């Protein structure tokens, strides 16, 4: 299976979330999906452009959509939900509003016919869940996790058109397939502070503190995310978040990418999935996965080596 791929700056350019790119590449490869990066893509503008200039963000994204369309892709995987949301929103708006399309095409110097469907990693894997089920070589042994979707996986509803905006379930179902034990909890779609990482880290600390506390209350051993921004905010500021929430000690809550969990279930090693580069130590989480690979899978793994 060959899939149009828009990695976005987070996964490629800013290396803050490099592990997400690495893990996504590795996991999808072992799932048998070939990611074909579209040529010369540009930044989607999130969050600075969509915060400050609607025409700019629309034009930037129409350029990417037109590139994907010209390259012959229908589905365009954007593992970063901020990118996916910008692509989807631009896609939705230019389809609804011919004037907006004309303006964006003119600015981007490209023609876009509206044939591309940008999708998030969750959406892609959910649609391919039978493949995932088939391909995984081991079940992750019932680790209690909270699935954190963040704000933009399902919003705006009319642009994303996927899952429930308030009580999404697709990531939970995927985690279940991987053998994890997703918990019911309150903060699935609460905002983490997104682009305020640097400019208003106090807001990020306040918001992530609420999320981490809710996950802790639910009894999570880890939080599963599929967004580089959520990951950065949740992973990097746990000390500040704990302090803001008035807690004595750090949360020490491992934040795991869906791609990393998938990779582990597909038999990849923690190193291959860059699990060692997180701020919060993931080794305890990885150790909990200590269950032996299934004999057949182990044999296949040995063979591949």
């Amino acid at each position, binding site marked *: 299976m060959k899939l149009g791929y828009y990695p976005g*700056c987070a996964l*490629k*350019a*800013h*290396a*803050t*979330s*490099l592990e997400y790119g690495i893990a996504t590449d590795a996991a999808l490869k072992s799932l048998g999906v070939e990611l074909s990066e579209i040529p*010369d*893509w*540009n*930044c989607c*503008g999130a*969050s*600075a*452009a*969509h*915060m*400050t*200039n*609607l*025409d*700019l963000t629309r*034009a*930037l994204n129409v*350029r990417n959509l037109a590139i994907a369309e010209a390259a012959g892709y229908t589905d365009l995987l954007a593992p970063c939900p901020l990118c996916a949301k910008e692509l989807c929103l631009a896609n939705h708006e230019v389809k609804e509003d011919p004037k907006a399309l004309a303006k964006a095409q*003119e*600015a*981007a*110097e490209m023609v876009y016919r509206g044939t591309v469907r940008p999708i998030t990693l969750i959406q892609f894997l959910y649609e391919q869940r039978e493949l995932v089920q088939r391909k995984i070589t081991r079940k992750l042994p019932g680790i209690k996790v909270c699935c954190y979707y963040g*704000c*933009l996986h399902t*919003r*705006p*509803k009319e642009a994303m058109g996927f899952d429930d*905006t*308030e009580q999404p379930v697709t990531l939970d179902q995927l985690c279940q397939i991987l053998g994890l034990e997703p918990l019911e909890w309150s903060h699935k*779609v*609460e*905002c983490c*502070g*997104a*682009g*305020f990482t*640097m*400019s*208003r*880290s106090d*807001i990020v600390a*306040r*918001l992530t503190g609420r999320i981490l506390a809710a996950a802790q209350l639910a009894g999570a051993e880890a939080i599963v995310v599929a967004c580089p921004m959520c990951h950065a905010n949740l992973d*990097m*500021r746990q000390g500040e978040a704990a302090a803001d929430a008035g807690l004595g000690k750090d949360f020490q809550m491992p934040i795991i990418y869906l791609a990393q969990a998938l990779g582990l279930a597909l038999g990849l090693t923690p190193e291959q999935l860059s699990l060692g*580069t*997180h*701020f919060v130590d993931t080794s305890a989480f990885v150790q909990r996965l200590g269950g032996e690979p299934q004999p057949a899978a182990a044999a296949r793994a040995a063979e591949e080596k």
Partner: protein
Amino acid sequence: MRLQLSRGQVDSDWKHEVERRLGHKSAECYQCGKCSAGCPVAYEMFHPVHAMVRLVQLGRMDEALRSRSQWVCVACETCSTRCPKDVDPARVMTILREMAQEHGTVNANEIDIYDFHQSFLSSVARFGRVYELGLVAFYKLKRPFKRGPQDMLTGLRMMRRGKPGLLPHKIQNVAAIRRIFERTRLAKSSDRKPD
């Protein structure tokens, strides 16, 4: 100061322009407060989301454009997702951010947020993608004494983990991106004129 309400104000060009960009009348909002109820950063706002929509309804341009609220808005879309009247308050906030730039009334208290957006965009305009280290440097250098020491530890920890990358990813057709920026420049000036 008593607010003078008149037809000229509640039916002003400014209000019509907001509504044009929004695609519907601000009067559709019935001020239920659902948006403000779910807003994760409402605690930072003097005028929470619903009050910002109210300012638009009453044509109170100055207060709306000088407010901090639109700048601390994280654009998480929670408000718009839950709005019972499909007023799209998140879009209202975006429009107010655009207009504050156009009118040169970006709230001085939230200059960090604004600078970060600008640093981000100048990075994109320059390379076609975000150059993270460059963005951070650019942002910090705008106010080195205040921003320089912030997050030093986090930065060090990131370096030790090999992130962010040292070199920019530059796309081939950067010129096209620059032209996009040119053509979509906000009406008056995107330069900041702090009040």
